[in-house]
């Protein structure tokens, strides 16, 4: 790993190789599309046009991107502490529950200016609290966080169904959904915001959560690389013993990292519950927590990379929906397959292409040096 970074220039290491990995994943996906009898090139075109070709499509793409930024950052911050948080799904679920409970309680008594920030904070706190339990068990009881966070996904789901079916369901309603929040509790949609400015754009679920997501990226970057807490998190992640030597308590740091991670995952609830659906309902997390793993891996756990990877997955999700719309034989699960392939190639096989690239680069730079010599 370190050898790769010492012999190759940075742009190859963090630019070209990830790109090659994504391309390989897409190539295999293309083969699968061929296998089920469709034209992959056409599929790509439909996807790109569907995701980026018109206003509404772009809106949806960015709406998905918002979710992936949150879950990607959540996975990344845990990764920096050496933890693998697979529980983003459950944390997002509970985060949404928190926001929903708060708004159901307070939407008639508080103005927007208080409701929205407090809802956001509640979502973060609920997500964080849900992550804090596995974190506590890892830090103080030695339970493996991968297992416990998976279990907590299942438990969150059960809890949510119990509450939705038995407690929060809107009376007389047949589907397990809460009542719709009052207007002040809605986060403004992008088309609404633009309308205030006199610009008309198509309706889409894109809302101001995206701004919060971008702020979170910047905030997390500062937090990880510019504060003593981020320093502590990275120390524990890289070398726990050195962290202990430095007076950092790994257990507390694990708690901190997971708390931040859970809060970030919980913000998916802000986008979904406060931004789009305006009510509590089941399954609004739709696998975003798991996709966060792929996003974080592709983005190399760096906020900037995560934004780019989130965009890519946003395109994949929206374009994939469009594809399923246009080509009936291609089903929605194809996007799941592509997602799995991206995790495989960008994560587990991240360094597969490195030797080849090194070899090519070696030849290329040699030839360049030779021709330069000749010229001289």
């Amino acid at each position: 790993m370190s050898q790769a970074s010492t012999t190759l220039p940075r742009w190859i290491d963090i630019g070209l190789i990830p790109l090659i990995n994504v391309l390989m994943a897409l190539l295999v996906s293309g083969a699968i599309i061929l296998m089920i009898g469709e034209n992959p090139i056409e599929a790509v075109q439909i996807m790109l046009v569907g995701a980026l070709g018109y206003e509404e499509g772009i809106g949806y793409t960015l709406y998905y991107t918002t979710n992936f930024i949150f879950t990607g950052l959540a996975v990344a911050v845990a990764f920096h502490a050496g933890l693998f948080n697979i529980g983003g799904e459950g944390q997002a679920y509970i985060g949404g529950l928190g926001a929903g409970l708060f708004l159901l309680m307070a939407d008639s008594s508080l103005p927007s200016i208080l409701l929205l920030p407090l809802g956001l904070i509640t979502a973060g706190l609920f997500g964080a609290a849900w992550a804090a339990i596995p974190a506590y068990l890892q830090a103080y009881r030695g339970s493996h966080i991968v297992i416990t966070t998976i279990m907590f996904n299942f438990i969150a789901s059960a809890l949510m169904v119990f509450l939705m079916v038995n407690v929060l369901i809107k009376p007389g309603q047949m589907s397990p959904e809460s009542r719709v929040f009052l207007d002040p509790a809605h986060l403004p949609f992008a088309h609404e915001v633009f309308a205030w400015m006199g610009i008309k754009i198509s309706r889409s679920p894109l809302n101001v959560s995206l701004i919060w997501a971008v702020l979170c990226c910047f905030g997390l970057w500062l937090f990880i690389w510019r504060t003593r807490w981020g320093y502590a998190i990275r120390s524990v992640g890289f070398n726990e013993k050195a962290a202990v030597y430095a007076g950092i308590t790994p257990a507390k740091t694990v708690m901190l990292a997971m708390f931040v991670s859970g809060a970030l995952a919980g913000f998916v609830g802000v986008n979904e519950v406060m931004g789009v659906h305006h009510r509590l309902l089941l399954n609004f997390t739709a696998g975003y927590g798991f996709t966060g793993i792929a996003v974080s891996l592709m983005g190399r756990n760096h906020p900037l990379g995560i934004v780019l990877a989130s965009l890519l997955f946003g395109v994949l999700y929206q374009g994939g929906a469009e594809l399923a719309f246009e080509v009936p034989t291609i089903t929605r699960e194809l996007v799941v397959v592509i997602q799995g392939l991206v995790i495989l190639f960008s994560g587990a096989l991240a360094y597969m292409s490195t030797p080849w690239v090194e070899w090519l680069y070696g030849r290329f730079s040699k030839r360049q040096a030779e021709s330069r010599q000749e010229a001289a």
Partner: protein
Amino acid sequence: MEQSFLFLVLTLDATLRVSTPLIFCAMAGLFSERSGIIDISLEGKMLAAAFAAASVAAVTGSAWLALIAGVAVAVGLALLHGFACITHKGNHVVSGVAINILASGLTIVLGIAWFQRGGQTPSLPPTARFMPVEFPLAQAVDGVPVLGTIYRELLSGHNLLVYVAFLIVPLTWWVVYRTRFGLRLRAVGENPTAVDTAGLSVSWLRFRAVMLCGLLTGLAGTYLSIAQNASFVRDMTAGQGYIALAAMIFGKWRPFPAFGACLIFGLLDAVAIRLQGVHVAGIGEVPVEFIQALPYILTVILLAGFIGKAVAPKAIGMPYLKER
């Protein structure tokens, strides 16, 4: 008395059926993790195997060909895991997650493409399945109290793979602790450098371990789709791979304790199924959701309370890099 005894026997009987895939997967995980390869892709391999077995059984009508197909696909995925973790020194957990997601998507995409049933495979006739094996005299001993009931209900009348699962446990123990391969397997999970300097190939050992893991998850998947059930249904593994992994950790990476943990989880599930909708004195009806979540809650509690810091093989999850 009679009634509650029968209830007990029948609950245990269900325990056997429910814990069978867990046992296969726990032993599979044990081989992999003892060699130092973390495997959270038990779930995905089992799912893929279930799909392959059901597909082949539907097309050929042969349970045995289906078994071979299920095992082959699971071993293939295991090799992919090995290729990522051993050959390319990728992160084990990430590779596992990728395989799980891939399996859950691909089984449906291919299922729809091949069978046009929304990811489900056609229902299988009994001839294409592993059907319950009736022990000799099972009906004859019916009259014998206690023992007769146990023989007829508990021991007899399971399908072949259930019995195989229960034989796999002592076999695993024997392989791990009584053979040359087992010695090397344990060594490579503890200290791969030592194994390398002893003139053994770390990669080959680990590849063999993950292939064994694939074999056993293949059996688990086959059991699910063509023995316990009669077709493949999307995401039919429903988290059992994770539970098996938890059982293996709970059993501290040792065959018999892991087996015990599988039985506990199986029993829990069997009891939960029977307790659903039952009014518990003083509490009233326990919410279904709680019963559903119980195995997961219990896993968390068991992992946190009983075994505390689980001692994994020392070199687990670490790619083997030759050091200067």
